């Protein structure tokens, strides 16, 4: 299990760090439909649009692909950390009568 998690995490880091800079930058399905039908005009600026990692690009990194890859790795590590903490904390909600 430890090896599976370590291996899986490496795969996720590689996908986010190395492959994501080459992902399609076209609008996604929802953005496309919203643009085509005039819904997108309602969009307001994101409250965190000045975040140092806004739009999956680490600010200050010159190379676009590097900026995206770094943001991806940061996101994967952060998501894993928050996830492990959350799922570990579920113990507190577990009924005490449970065996095993």
């Amino acid at each position, binding site marked *: 299990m430890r090896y599976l998690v370590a291996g899986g995490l490496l795969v996720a880091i590689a996908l986010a760090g190395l492959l994501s800079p080459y992902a399609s930058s076209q*609008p996604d399905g*929802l953005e496309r439909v919203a643009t085509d*039908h005039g819904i997108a005009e309602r969009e307001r600026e994101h409250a965190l649009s000045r975040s140092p990692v806004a739009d999956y690009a680490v600010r200050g990194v010159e190379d676009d692909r590097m900026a995206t890859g770094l943001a991806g790795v940061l*996101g994967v590590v952060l998501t894993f950390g928050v996830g492990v903490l959350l799922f570990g904390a*579920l113990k507190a909600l577990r009924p005490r009568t449970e065996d095993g």
Partner: protein
Amino acid sequence: MHIPDGFIGAGASIGAGVVSAGGVAVALRQAARTLSERLAPLAGLVAAFVFAVQMLNFPVAAGTSGHLIGGVLAAVLVGPWAAVLCLTVVLGVQALFADGGLTALGLNVLNMGLLTALPGYGLFFVLRSALGNGRTAVVAAAGVAATLSVVIAAAAFVAEYAIGGAGEVDIATVLKAMVAVHTLIGIGEGVITALTVGAVLSVRPDLVYGAPAAARPALEIRTAT
């Protein structure tokens, strides 16, 4: 599929936020019961994997892309309630990257978390049973359920737009456009989900929540040391 701020009005956004908060609260209790403590790192990995693959937009039509949502993938791997929590963590982290509006977080947790993982897992379960519960059945059912879950999420957006949109756009037109493009994106979702479930099944079938007992090795009884 992430709804930005402003698309849906405040009332519908708050309503979705309340529904999502309730759903996440139920998910916390249910996941605490169904997910053994030992599997916490695995569930964290599923969330991290979903985050990574959501970055990988693939082209689906001229000038349009799509990416995995991962609700059914997570549900088959760690169970539907833990999957809701995985997607909630992913969407929360993505907000830091300015992806998906903060005021739309409830809408996005509802559409991409609750409404993919829960009905998607139900569909998966029915399909898996109908296909005979073998390993191939698990992979095929996961793929098909994943495809359908994207269409469900797309339809949910249209319902929310009908309630909380400006109303100047014909709902039937938006529904047609959303379902059409998300059927294509859903095919990508199905392929990625089937491949990933198949890969985990071939390495550690015992860790696949959605695999029936027959497809998993027998549990061994160990004495405490």
